[in-house]
């Protein structure tokens, strides 16, 4: 038997009471805040998970917003591209019609008027702005119109008409992150979307014996190419071909010039950074080699142009009544343009689809992240309330017992 001193039951009671008060306070605070952990120590590992889940949840939300933004931009762009396709289709109809040889010169001129109107409309379409006031087709240079439209008087047409259209936008290097570490190219560039034909550039000089004499760096369609001193022309060709751009370089077997050709219809974009090698081989101009895309050597032959080049060719041929040209080069050019546009539309559709997939996957992920987080961080109210009532019950019981036991001593029975 253990001896019990008078203070022992009191001390014991006090200890148990403070312990219970602490637990009741914990439960009560949990219920008040609806959190399952008041402090990190309540569930440190869960807390670590929750921090990750919380951050991951916010990231996913952000990615969804990014996707919505890009998708919005692209669907607008798609609308304009569809419109451009209809315009080009109409132009093609006109060219077929005009090439039949059954129309008189005046009829062709009427067609030319329509073609001119269509070209104007096409110019509006390609310089379209998105909802946030940014141009849709100017690559990264979203604040300037992608196509510079030159107007003048064209013989045979009454009003001032479009005479030249050239790309004034930029390359598209911006990417938007759609999931951790995965991005999509955000901006569309008009010199690819509205390009009709493969571009070919024939250098102006014979490159035989050419050797690079200093370090040269230039950016070809957004890809860095570095030429080292001592590289001969074949090395230069290989370096361009290996750069990863959709451009193929070759040496002309006849003239010995350095030629470039696109493998997907678009405009070749060369930005020199240091060195003059490309000017030396007669590809770029010496005067202002950085003024892309008008930085080709004056003697270099550049072929393959945008949709406008084909559309304007049709208009002019119609005006001149050159049915042979209409039926030959013009129809062919418009066909290529149409093909290229349809390919770009399909490409955009495929990319949009990827976004759709990513978006629905992320939405699902957001839901499950939220669930998981809530499971770890939020209070199980039923459990908390049950615990609370248990604690209340034991408190009542212990108070009652304490009240009875602590009140009697021998003193009560002594006279």
């Amino acid at each position: 038997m253990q001896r019990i001193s008078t203070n022992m039951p009191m001390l014991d009671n006090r200890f148990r009471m403070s312990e219970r008060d602490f637990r009741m306070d914990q439960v009560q605070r949990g219920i008040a805040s609806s959190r399952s952990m008041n402090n990190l120590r309540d569930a440190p590992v869960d807390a670590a998970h929750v921090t990750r889940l919380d951050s991951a949840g916010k990231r996913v939300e952000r990615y969804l917003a990014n996707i919505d933004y890009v998708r919005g931009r692209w669907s607008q762009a798609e609308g304009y591209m569809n419109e451009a396709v209809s315009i080009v289709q109409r132009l093609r109809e006109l060219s077929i019609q005009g090439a039949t040889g059954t129309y008189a010169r005046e009829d062709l001129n009427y067609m030319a008027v329509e073609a001119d109107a269509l070209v104007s409309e096409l110019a509006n379409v390609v310089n379209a702005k998105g909802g946030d006031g940014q141009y849709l087709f100017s690559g990264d240079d979203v604040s300037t119109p992608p196509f510079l439209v030159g107007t003048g008087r064209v013989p045979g047409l009454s009003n001032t008409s479009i005479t030249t259209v050239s790309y004034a936008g930029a390359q598209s290097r911006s990417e938007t992150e759609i999931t951790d570490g995965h991005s999509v190219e955000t901006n569309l560039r008009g010199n690819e979307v509205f390009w009709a034909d493969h571009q070919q550039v024939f250098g102006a000089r014979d490159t035989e014996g050419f050797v690079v004499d200093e370090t040269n760096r230039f950016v070809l369609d957004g890809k860095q190419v570095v030429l080292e001193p001592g590289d001969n022309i074949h090395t230069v060709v290989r370096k361009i071909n290996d750069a990863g751009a959709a451009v193929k370089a070759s040496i002309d077997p006849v003239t010995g010039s350095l030629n470039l050709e696109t493998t997907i219809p678009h405009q070749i974009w060369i930005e020199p950074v240091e060195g003059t090698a490309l000017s030396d081989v007669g590809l770029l101009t010496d005067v202002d080699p950085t003024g892309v895309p008008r930085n080709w050597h004056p003697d270099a032959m550049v072929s393959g142009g945008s949709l406008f080049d084909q559309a304007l060719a049709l208009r002019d041929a119609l005006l001149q009544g050159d049915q042979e040209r209409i039926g030959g080069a013009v129809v062919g050019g418009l066909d290529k343009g149409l093909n290229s546009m349809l390919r770009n539309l399909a490409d955009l559709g495929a990319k949009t689809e990827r976004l759709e997939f990513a978006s629905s996957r992320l939405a699902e992920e957001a839901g499950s992240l939220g669930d998981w987080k809530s499971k770890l961080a939020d209070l199980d109210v039923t459990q908390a309330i049950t615990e609370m009532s248990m604690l209340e019950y034991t408190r009542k019981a212990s108070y009652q017992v304490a009240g009875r036991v602590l009140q009697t001593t021998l003193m009560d029975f002594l006279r």
Partner: protein
Amino acid sequence: MGSTFSGIEIGKRSLNTHQQALSTVGHNLSNASVEGYSRQRVKMRAVDPLYRPQLNREEVPGQIGQGVEVASIERIRDELLENRILAQGDLAGYWETRDSYILQVEQIHQEPYDTSVRALMDQFWQGWQELSVHPDGQAERQAVLRRGEALIDGVNQRYNRLKQVRNMLDDDIVVSVGEVNGMLAEIKNLNEEIVKSEALGDNPNDMYDRRDLLVNKLSEYLPVTVDNRDPDEFLIHTRGLHLIQGKQVSYLDVDPNPSNEGYHDIIWDANGELLRPASGKLGSLVELRDTDVRGEIQSLDEMTMAFADLVNGIHRDGWSATGSTGVDFFREYPFVDNLSGNYDRSGDGELDSTYVYRLSGIHSLDPASPVGFAGTITLDGPNGEVNVPYTAMDTVENILDRINSSPAEVTAVLDRQGRLEIRAGISGSTDNPDFVIRHVEDSGQFLTGYAGLLEGSGPEAAYDWRQSDAVLALSPGGAAYSVSPLSHPSGWLRVNEELVADPSKVASGLSDTGRRPPSGDNRAASDIAMLRHRPVLAGRSETFDDWFALAAADIGLKGEIAAQSRESQDLVMKELEDLRQSISGVNLDEEFAEMIKFQHGYNAAARFVTTVDEMIDTIINRLGA
């Protein structure tokens, strides 16, 4: 034959003894609630009988009893139990202190809910994402700046609160040492009193109780052992050294330590030697201040420094919509203001050290390509030199991994252009400054020709911080370095004022050509936003998410252990206290029973005296009348 009056003497002794016993009962009853009081018992004993068995003894059968006397008044206590309580006292003090301070640190983290630094950082990354979607937006630039400021406020605040806790701990140490000294002085005084009292043959029970109580309290501050085998000298030891030896006291003192930010060391007052209590409240306070909270601050510093450096690295390369470039996003004040990182460490007016935080090589490296030659890189770690060997077949990545997993207090990474970058980390010992690269040496060509960091191989061409102009050892013509912060980065980081003044200078684009990129180029913004989940930090946590999760788990686990240990230690102490109460505590019922017993004894003695009185009366007044 006994004396006529001996009965009165016997009765008187009995009356005295019982009175003494009754007053002891009263003493017990009165002190029932006094902390540390042990109940006392009067030990009664029969007085030595008359006539020892010698030749001159009275020829009567038996001895003549002489009544009762008080032999001693003793405390009822269990010496072994008391020692166990003393032995547990320092643990109780340790866990109680640790529990309450760790809880404060936990609350500083404010995890896992929305007010934490992590949530602010999430907002910051969110801002860059928004800017990456609208690279030419001014509102987005404002948002990035404001969120950057909010984040830095959050980091600063976290630093300040941790610093406050560290200051509180230091104050607590100073106050506690004072308390310990006070207790020691009091014990010494009691010792003197007790020895005097004992010399007179007394049993100073209440002084014993008070001394035991003080020793108990002392044991909460320091691990102590008590030795009272020598009745003249009461000894208290801590870690084998005397705290108290009878009248001799070794007091403690505090001494500010400049290499530990002026925080106080606990020293012996007599010889100034350092005292490192292993446990108890003092041990706990020192550990919390110099390990746990210091570690929290260092870890926050390291993350902040890496964070600011990474964001700045991209931001400097980036171009704003107005064409500015080369601007830092965050600024650290104060930095070492010498451009070569030269610094006067000893404070004697001469530049004697080089404080450099980051070194970068010239050449772009491919992480997967083998280096093709062997050598040994020598760096500095918490316990001196760290050697990292490499062979010809090792790839760059292998070597970097090996450096990062070695104890060397640096991190080696490739920057965005693939150039080797060596960054200083926090230092384990308080003798070395944080964020200072201390030693870089390569016996082979990896750091020299290959990475273009050092000019030459071997110890002569090594980079070492213990000299001014150490950066001259770097590869000439491009090997870059940046100087170290002089104070805690987490306390002194700010958003660059140049940007606050002109938000349009916030960079969003990158340039491939060295010319201003178009306004819609978002690559800088998007690269910065991607820092969030890329493995950019080396060491235990690779991404910022990892860092925050680990920081929360770390302090949470510490808190969990502290709370559990405190609870179990409380239970142990309670059990022991119960046992002590069971032995030494006053039970009123018992005392009342004793009281009645002694009361009756007293009554009986009085009756006995009356009877003897009547007997004498008979003899004197009635005889022959």
